[in-house]
């Protein structure tokens, strides 16, 4: 089982992204998807960095794909999506509309925001040229196993959400702007203040969700530490690690050690929990009862 780093979902400054991807060149991951997924308004602030980021990662031996937006509505967003296919790199699609722009016989990746729930959909996408599919995070282990097998039969690598706040929903409405009583068109990019998303608690003070512009994520950080063996046994090809603040290269190394069997799940959890956004892990989508559940108690002293 390999490691893939997903696109950064949050609004970070260009120089921070530059540093993040520079450091990532040394991380033990096989591939990286790069691009703005959440909000097209953020693109002008950092898209000029992408060529250098891509060149650096490829020079370091990583496979690289360019990510499309997750929700494409505006004309300029459609054009951006179209143009991605001309750059000579694999494209990771996060919105079905990208398939309309896909040139014939062009391999592509499928991101976790695309609904691949069953063999029929996986088979169709494979016939269209999909070579990698990262499954939606809400799928349980049984479905993952069935799809990993279907992927093997169809020649598609199947990937699963490994670590990071879980992407739960996307909307036309910007919640960051709404929280600041601003219109989306006049958001003044306040989502850039919350580097791992802005937390949303219940009225009882329970951490619940986090918002990231038009995206809603979990408050707890999704963590597959206790499920790596099961996922490997199920035939999953890769775990996806989602960028977050803190020592991300260390996080990648931790997962690499975990997959190699060098460290226990407890050790990985103990390593990652102090820097986990939300301070809590969740892995309930794998084995229930609900996505917000965590299969193991917090280790003592953490």
């Amino acid at each position, binding site marked *: 089982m390999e490691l893939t780093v997903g696109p950064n979902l949050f609004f970070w400054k260009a120089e921070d992204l530059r540093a993040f991807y520079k450091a990532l060149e040394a991380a033990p991951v096989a591939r990286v998807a790069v691009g703005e997924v959440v909000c097209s308004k953020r693109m002008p602030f950092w898209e000029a960095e992408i060529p250098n980021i891509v060149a650096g990662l490829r020079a370091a031996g990583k496979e690289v794909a360019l990510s499309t937006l997750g929700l494409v509505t505006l004309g300029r967003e459609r054009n951006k999506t179209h143009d991605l296919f001309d750059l000579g790199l694999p494209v990771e699609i996060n919105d079905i509309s990208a398939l309309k*722009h896909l040139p014939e016989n062009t391999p592509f990746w499928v991101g976790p925001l695309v609904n691949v729930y069953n063999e029929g*959909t996986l088979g169709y996408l494979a016939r269209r040229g999909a070579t990698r599919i990262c499954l939606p995070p809400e799928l349980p282990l049984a479905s993952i196993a069935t799809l990993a097998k279907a992927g093997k039969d169809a020649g598609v690598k199947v990937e699963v959400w490994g670590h990071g706040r879980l992407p*739960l929903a996307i909307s036309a409405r910007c919640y960051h702007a709404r929280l600041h009583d601003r219109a989306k068109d006049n958001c003044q990019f306040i989502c850039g203040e919350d580097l791992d998303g*802005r937390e*949303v608690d219940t009225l009882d003070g329970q951490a619940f969700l986090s918002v990231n512009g038009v995206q809603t994520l979990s408050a707890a950080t999704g963590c597959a530490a206790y499920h790596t063996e099961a996922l490997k046994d199920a035939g999953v090809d890769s775990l996806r690690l989602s960028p977050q603040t803190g020592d991300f290269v260390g996080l990648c190394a931790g997962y690499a050690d975990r997959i190699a069997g060098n460290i226990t799940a407890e050790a990985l959890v103990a390593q990652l929990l102090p820097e986990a956004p939300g301070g809590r892990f969740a892995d309930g989508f794998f084995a229930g009862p*609900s*996505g917000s559940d965590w299969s193991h108690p917090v280790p003592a002293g953490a």
Partner: protein
Amino acid sequence: MMELVCPAGTPAALRAAVEAGAHAVYCGFADETNARNFPGLNFSPEELVPAVAGAHKRGAKVLVALNTFPRAGGEKLWHQRLADAEAAGADAVILADIGLLDYAATHHPKLRRHLSVQAAAANPDAINFYAETFDVKRVVLPRVLTVQEIAAINKEIDVETEAFVFGGLCVMAEGRCALSSYATGLSPNMNGVCSPASHVVYAEEGPDLAAKLGGFTIHRTPKDRPAPYPTLCKGCFTSGSQTGHVFEDPVSLDARHLIPALAKAGVTALKIEGRQRSRAYVAEVVRAFRAATDALAEGRDLPLAELARLTEGQSATAGAYAKTWR
């Protein structure tokens, strides 16, 4: 004449909707193949047959929603339901999943296909993809678009569009939301339920009534005040120093006044949400909307009697149709 597409959660509601003037009704089977998989709701394959026959006799169409995403390893059930819908004489099926669309186009080529709102086809590229690839004849538009955007989309596509005008309102892109399964383990995409009643607990806490879903408090209201159902995205939460309806107020959609604009934008059909509502509710809403579409067809002013009392939380919004909503 704009087509009025109305909800039918039960055979009785289907009859009520047709009698009240529905041009078409939509319904689903009593299992996880549709996105209103609620206890006591929906049709058995046997119940669908006379319902379709009765609707056809009265000039109304029946559309069958198979708009969840088939379970890996369990696609057979969805395939069987496609066959059941065709056997019952359904006028179209409403599908969201690419695999199921592909299967339907191959195995039931004569069964008309509509694209469910759960597919969230929000731009002309997505719509044209589904139209060209799976021969979809009509697209139910996501509730994230403005009227202007709908008009622009219709200029670039050849298939019919259907727009929601009344009832529940999803604030997230439909079919792309796992909030419910995060809190309860059950989701619209996989199980056909959102914020399911099985996970709802109302608890009296001091002077308040707390409405909880899967252990998360979604609302807290004084005991004597109306308590909205704890639908996740309409909940009251705290973020930093702010407390309020972070995602959406507990409102429902009422876009009746936009019917002429939607007609002008090229929309073919108007959809009313609410398969979980009673036959009485359905009949009343359908009558009001039929009066509106009739008025529009005859060039009269729309009868815009207030229906707000029937709406969840007692207030309504034009939703994303107005750009300020975003």
